[in-house]
């Protein structure tokens, strides 16, 4: 680690990280259905291709251009979920080639998360570890990189997660939302250490600046509209002396989907590196580089779970009502039976049902107000999504009842291995594991 003393006139490192994800959406499934094909392949293909054309391809090409233009001074990070990688392979393989090209520039870092973009951390530490490992492996296979920085689904985070990640022994940092209620007077523009950890570092999203791009960019009622690259770079410059890093974490669909091309979002991004780099003390860094460069400024204590969702920054978007908690409990209750069946198709189907979006669609929080939750919801109502999910779960259940419950030896051994890795610092995990086995 470079020895960096604290400067009063510091550098501002801009750290971009883009979340890239699509769920495998379920097809309409009534209680009378008994087809084992649960996923709406046609709709998923359609949406995948649409988003590829509006976002992934043009944005990847833009980032590639910028990397080449600035000769290694422009860097970004991505976290691409396993379920999206599968869909890209099937429906838009050209996107994968652009990600591959990005990987080969050496200026792009890939992060790790749960393969299935799931809430498994909350319900099955075992399953969580398995999904993380699966994701790491896939990233290695596809892009020749081994992720060293971890982000949990929807930036769900607490001290326990940090401890768990540290104990896995293969990560240097974890990412979280820089929520006001955990930071207090402190700024997200520094590296921190999670409470209870020694080696692991914590990078916190600067939600204000991130959301300026991701949400407010095209809002004409916003006092700062229109947001230009040089205006934004001035705000970044103000961080100098008050922080070292500006963590801009957002959904990749910001570029072309949430913010359409007509809003000028691509042009904004095209000019941003130039404006940022105009100031000689500024640079771009990947999350790993940030962690290597800057010493942690303190310890951040997050005893209760937080996320990057809605104004509450909590878990209410996925678990706020009785339907959601019921659905997720019933899902994870099947774990033992599902894994015991040894049927890989069954296991994969069960895992694809874990994607957090399925529960997001059941959210009734703002249903009557017809807001952002509704826009991306393929269902007419949260109730329809719950009914659909539960009907499919019923069929899943039937399928694993058909299989004898004896677990194949290989599976048990693998699970035991994972348990060992995970056991070191977390007594709670023991308790959970004891429950499962």
């Amino acid at each position, binding site marked *: 680690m470079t020895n960096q003393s604290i400067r009063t006139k510091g550098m501002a490192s801009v750290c971009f990280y883009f979340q890239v994800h699509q769920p495998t959406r379920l097809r309409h499934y009534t*209680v*009378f259905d008994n087809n084992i094909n649960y996923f709406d392949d046609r709709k998923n293909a359609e949406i995948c291709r649409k988003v590829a054309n509006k976002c992934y391809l043009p944005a990847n090409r833009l980032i590639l251009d910028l990397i080449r233009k600035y000769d290694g001074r422009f860097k970004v990070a991505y976290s691409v979920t396993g379920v999206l990688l599968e869909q890209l392979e099937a429906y838009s393989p050209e996107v994968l080639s652009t990600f591959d090209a990005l990987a080969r520039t050496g200026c792009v870092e890939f992060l790790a998360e749960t393969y299935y973009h799931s809430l498994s951390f909350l319900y099955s530490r075992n399953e969580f570890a398995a999904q993380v490992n699966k994701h790491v492996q896939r990233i290695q296979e596809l892009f020749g990189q081994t992720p060293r920085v971890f982000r949990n689904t929807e930036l769900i985070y607490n001290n326990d997660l940090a401890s768990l990640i540290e104990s896995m022994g293969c990560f240097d940092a974890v990412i979280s939302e820089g929520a006001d209620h955990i930071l207090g007077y402190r700024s997200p523009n520094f590296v921190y250490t999670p409470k209870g950890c020694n080696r692991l570092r914590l990078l916190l999203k600067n939600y204000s600046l991130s959301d300026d791009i991701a949400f407010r960019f095209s809002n004409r009622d916003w006092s700062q509209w229109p947001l230009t690259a040089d205006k934004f770079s001035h705000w970044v410059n103000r961080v100098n002396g008050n922080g070292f890093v500006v963590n801009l974490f957002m959904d990749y669909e910001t570029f072309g989907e949430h913010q359409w091309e007509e809003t000028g979002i691509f042009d904004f991004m095209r000019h941003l590196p130039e404006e940022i780099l105009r100031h000689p003390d500024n640079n771009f860094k990947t999350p790993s580089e940030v962690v290597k460069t800057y010493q942690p400024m303190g310890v951040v204590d997050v005893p209760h779970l937080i996320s990057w969702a809605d104004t509450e920054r909590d878990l209410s978007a996925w678990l706020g009502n009785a*339907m959601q908690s019921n659905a997720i409990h019933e899902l994870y209750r099947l774990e033992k039976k599902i894994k015991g069946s040894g049927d890989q198709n069954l296991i994969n189907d069960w895992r694809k049902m874990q994607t957090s979006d399925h529960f997001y669609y059941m959210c*009734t929080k703002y249903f009557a107000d017809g807001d952002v939750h509704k826009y991306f919801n393929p269902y007419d*109502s949260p*109730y*329809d999504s719950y*009914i659909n999910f539960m009907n499919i779960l019923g069929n899943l259940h039937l399928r694993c009842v058909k299989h004898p419950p004896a677990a194949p030896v290989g599976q048990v051994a693998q699970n035991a291995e994972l348990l060992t890795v995970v056991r070191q610092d977390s007594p709670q995990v023991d308790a959970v594991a004891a429950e499962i086995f």
Partner: protein
Amino acid sequence: MRVFMLGWEFPPFISGGLGTACYGLTKALDEMGVQITFVLPTVVQSKYATHVKLVSHGTHVELASPTMQQSVHTPVKVQQLKNVVFRTISSPLQPYLTANSYQQKIEESISKMQASHGRAGKFAGTLDYSGDMYTEVQRYADLAVRLAANEQFDVIHAHDWMTYPAGAAVARATGKPLVVHVHSTEFDRSGEHVNQMIYDIERMGMHAADRVIAVSYLTRSIVISRYGISGDKVEVVYNGVERNGNSNLLVGNTTIKKDEKIVLFLGRITMQKGPDYFLRAAKKVLEKIDNVRFVMAGSGDMMHRAVEMAAELGIGSKVLFTGFLRGEDVNKIFKMADLYVMPSVSEPFGIAPLEALDNDVPIIISKQSGVSEVITHALKVDFWDVDEIANKIVAVLKYPPLGVTLRSHGNYEVRKLRWKDSAARCAKIYEEALVGAGV
């Protein structure tokens, strides 16, 4: 503001949504201080039979059912309506009549009177049974004009087609502006086989009116597209729901076992309400779940057909027909129900689902209904999609959290639908009508 209101029944003798809506609206207008002369048709028979007695100036109202057997009438205290004066016009007109059912009704009345008086041809009442329904509607109009001559008012408000000729006639005679309230249209009631005469009357009324009130955007679009009314003349005023609150009722003994789920259909058993879709969905549900009972509470022209259909489908033992329910019986049945289903083919609004939500019963409603415009916390289906109706019924019965969430959100949502707001909108429309008429 003084209103000459051409309305319908008053509780507890309400035969459906029209009466409920008139009552709810009038009560809310009364609370706002709007003065109302409420005109309704009643059947006044000979002094030997029961009679309807209405005491005006609204301190309290005594009502007796014309259908009650005893000659002693039981006064029913309706709550204080300080600003409402009641006027009655002798007429056998009732909501939901068709030409045939009117004839039937007349014939029944005639034979009843013949039986009690033992004479033919001579009646003590002022009723004229010589004509058919349309003649009676016109006669009602003439009588309304005569009644109006002795009343003071600023605007006329007519509810549903049978009162449109009366409204138009009074408007012509007095020069006051007319507001017609479309609670339903022939297209809702009869599908595409509209009765030309009723259609003509509806059209006449809407064109004669200064303002038209529709109970939903669904109805408003029918008014515009099928009746040729200009969009800026038609306003939407949603119905409200009379909140009964959660009274702790003791439910009496029934033949329904306690662990059986109850799926309720409450409404007139007529084509418009989709009773056949209800029964077909019931059959599908019974393929998956056994301990459920389907209750059809109501009566109507398709009642016998429904009973037959249940038998034909082989689900006769699982379907209960209660006949027409009113008053406290309605609340009781809601308290027993696990789910309320309204598979209406074309429902201009639909107050019953709101009453269900008010009683903590989750609802499945047809997308082809006005009420689906105002409620988000309900399960919605296309009325023809029997598989989906069954799917949703099974889901509610099988997955308790679904009902829990629907109930708690729905109950909260329904509180926003108050007659107070409907009345306020009507009052505003009265003002607009006055301005428009240059009064």
